[in-house]
């Protein structure tokens, strides 16, 4: 049986080892297995990055929805300027940003094998995150007492949905931080598995970055 094979010239197999077809010879070099996986990035870390990429679109759509909704709030209804308390939210934003710092310190401690330091900093991160969520609950209560309920108007629905989604993300993050702490106390999380701390840290920093966007776009430009 014969075949006309024009597009692929077939060199002798020994030569072909280094020769990728169609001028992609440099790709052959790219396939080096660093650290056991093809890319050199662990499965879990790649998964987390992909998940966060997906989350970007989630918050992108939510923020767009908020902007769209706010721009269509009818005249005279209760709006951003009536309820926002910038000094208060600035403080709680600062608290959340500081939790990113403590998260870095927790990971750094774990990487250096300082498990006591890890426990301190991871607890601090959880507490700062908890403070932020508590601040959000307080803020929601104040807004509600001002007359802004979830169903009051289009701004209320969009505002509570966006910040609520973010708050849920922070809360899930706190649960994961506490799980890390518990695992470390039970002895199943040591410096040899610092990558888990790093992964939760990635998530935590992402949630913080989203808050920077929300704070800037929603609170600082309420018009």
């Amino acid at each position, binding site marked *: 049986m014969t075949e006309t094979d024009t597009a692929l010239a077939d060199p002798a197999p020994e030569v072909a080892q280094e020769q990728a077809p169609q001028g992609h010879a440099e790709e052959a070099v790219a396939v080096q297995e660093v650290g056991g996986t093809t890319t050199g990035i662990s499965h879990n870390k790649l998964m987390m990055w992909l998940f966060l990429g997906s989350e970007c679109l989630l918050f992108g759509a939510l923020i767009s929805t908020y902007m769209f909704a706010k721009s*269509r709030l009818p005249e005279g209804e209760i709006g951003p300027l009536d309820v926002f308390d910038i000094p208060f939210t600035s403080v709680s934003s600062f608290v959340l940003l500081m939790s990113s710092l403590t998260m870095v310190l927790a990971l750094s401690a774990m990487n250096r094998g300082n498990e006591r330091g890890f426990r301190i900093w991871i607890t601090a991160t959880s507490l700062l995150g908890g403070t932020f969520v508590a601040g959000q609950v307080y803020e929601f209560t104040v807004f509600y007492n001002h007359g802004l309920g979830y169903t009051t108007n289009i701004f209320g*629905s969009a505002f509570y949905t966006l910040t609520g989604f973010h708050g849920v993300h922070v809360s899930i993050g706190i649960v994961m931080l506490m799980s890390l702490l518990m695992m470390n106390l039970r002895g199943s999380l040591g410096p040899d598995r610092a990558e888990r701390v790093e992964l939760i840290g990635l998530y935590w920093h992402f949630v913080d970055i989203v808050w920077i966007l929300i704070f800037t776009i929603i609170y600082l430009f309420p018009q």
Partner: protein
Amino acid sequence: MTTTSEPQQLQLTAGDQMVRPSSSLGMLARPRGDTGWRSWLFTVDHKRIGILYGAAALIFLVVGGVEALLIRLQLAAPGGRVLSEDAYNQVFTMHGVTMVFLVIMPLAAAFSNFLLPLQIGARDVAFPRLNAFSFWCFLFGGIFLNTSWMLGGAPDGGWFGYAPNSGLVFSPSHGMDFYALGLQITGIASLVSAINLIVTVLNMRTKGMSLWRMPVLSWMLLIVQFLLLFAIPVITVALFLLMFDRLFGANFFNVAAGADPLLWQHLFWIFGHPEVYILILPAFGIMSEVIPTFSRKPLFGYPFMVFSGIAIGFMGWGVWAHHMFTSGVGPISVAAFSLSTMFIAVPTGVKILNWLATMWGGRLQFTTAMLFSIGAVAMFTIGGLSGVTHAIAPADTQQTDTFYIVAHFHYVIFGGSLLGMLSGFYFWWPKAFGYKLNERWGKASFWVLMLGFNLTFGPMHILGLQGMSRRIQSYSADAGFSFWNAMATVGAFVTAIGFLIFIMNIYRSRKAYRSGLLKPVGPDPWDARALEWMTASPVPEHNFDREIVVSRQDEFWHRKWEIKDDGKVVRRARAEDVAHDGSAKGIHLPSPSYWPIILALGLPLLAYGLIFNIWISIIGGLVVLGAIYGWVLESPDDPEAHDHEEHHSDAVSGNGSGPADVHLPAVADSGADPAAKAL
């Protein structure tokens, strides 16, 4: 993975028994066994999950097909009385939702699950338990959607669910709640599966398998997973907003409170247009495998095929507003999206020309799989051309909401995607089950399907240009629509017969195989090109006996054939000698698990609760929490090996290019001297 320096890669030497870890939580014995229903319910094997996806999708295809026949019966003659207006709305909505989310997408998932790890030479996917979870999540989401028929009425707002038409005011039944929640559940399935498969392709390619040596199918499936990764969150947000509006009284689509109906349309179509490519690209990949094999030629212009796939993936994000030309988005938007829509036809055209060039001068073998692929190219081209007419906005304003649109998207989705998938069924059936489907029945089903398909949807072009509206349950006798509608209904039933022949073929071939009339096939019945043919048929649980070292595209083909200096192709080795016979023993595989199916079971309970009674939600929530707890505490594999315990996923961090616990034997198969293994 290196072949020398990682002793833990070689978990067991050949000759040992297949290792089955004993327990998960201590109180609950781990599922085990290779046969019986348990082996399917709790499996984490990517091939079994792929087969489950395929089987479930075929069942939903029957459901969606019956809905299609009901629509055609209603429209067969003027003033049809088969369905009431309300029932018609439900039937056409569920037909669309079923075919898009429960048939084509899971069929693509079936092929990606079954083939991706094989084509890149991997042992399994990166996260086997998450993979099982994706399947059950999809299945329960699909069942959840379909239970709406019995629980107060199915969704009735179209598969696109335009708000506020899908809001409580215009759709007071629970139908659209089922839509919002059910698609949320299947969305979770798609998202998890997308992440899993991207990690698999990027991280688990066998030695030498650079991205530019991957088969085009692997490439297309990878692109689809990226599209899913970024499109699903957008529809998730849209569905959440709709759900909050309907269940909690939010105002996102409440026009009285100032809301703009365009919000839903933008969100939906930002998801919805990439979704179109999510549906078609897997079929493009399948055709790119089938056509070279049966043309006895390599694929023409491999880099062009890959780059045009990538281009489609990118440009697919910039054309969504062509679904909204008549919604008042403004002349600048219309012009811009009109142009981008015309541009996206270019990479698609490149693909079609490449398939033609592949066949050109080839020694064509008209097997059933080849016929379906050629049919798909032809039908998709027709659908693509009518698509270009939509890109011209003034023409589109005439075509919008007419049967011309219905004709267009059936030509691309049925004629392109579904025929492509059917081609894949015939092509890879021997790989999955060890025997070929009957070719004569297959060809019969092909020709009947082609006849029925064109008879159904061809006339819809005419009907649409005559002005017949879609989504309207009746038409009057003096409208001039009667003849072509009758033809379309006849065509629909011919199509149904075509599918019946296909299903009969599966039944008869299987029976013949079981009774020994049909011979089992070897590893490579079609003389094909990609790595999945380099192992036994059906594929053994451990995929490959040895790690394969890849040194070029179409590695497997080149191990069988040699091209002499004068261009003559001569056989280098028999497929049986090159391919692995699946006899390797003692290969460490991920263990079955209860938790994926239990976790997936909790989600529809949560959803029912939101619609009917919050207590059901609480039960569902507890099931979900318990399952996550069990999942986390259960090691993905051997309970003795504590380093496999994982917090939120089932892969080991950082080491091993296999899934958490999948280890390839250290003996590499570089194929450097296949002649030595030949007779």
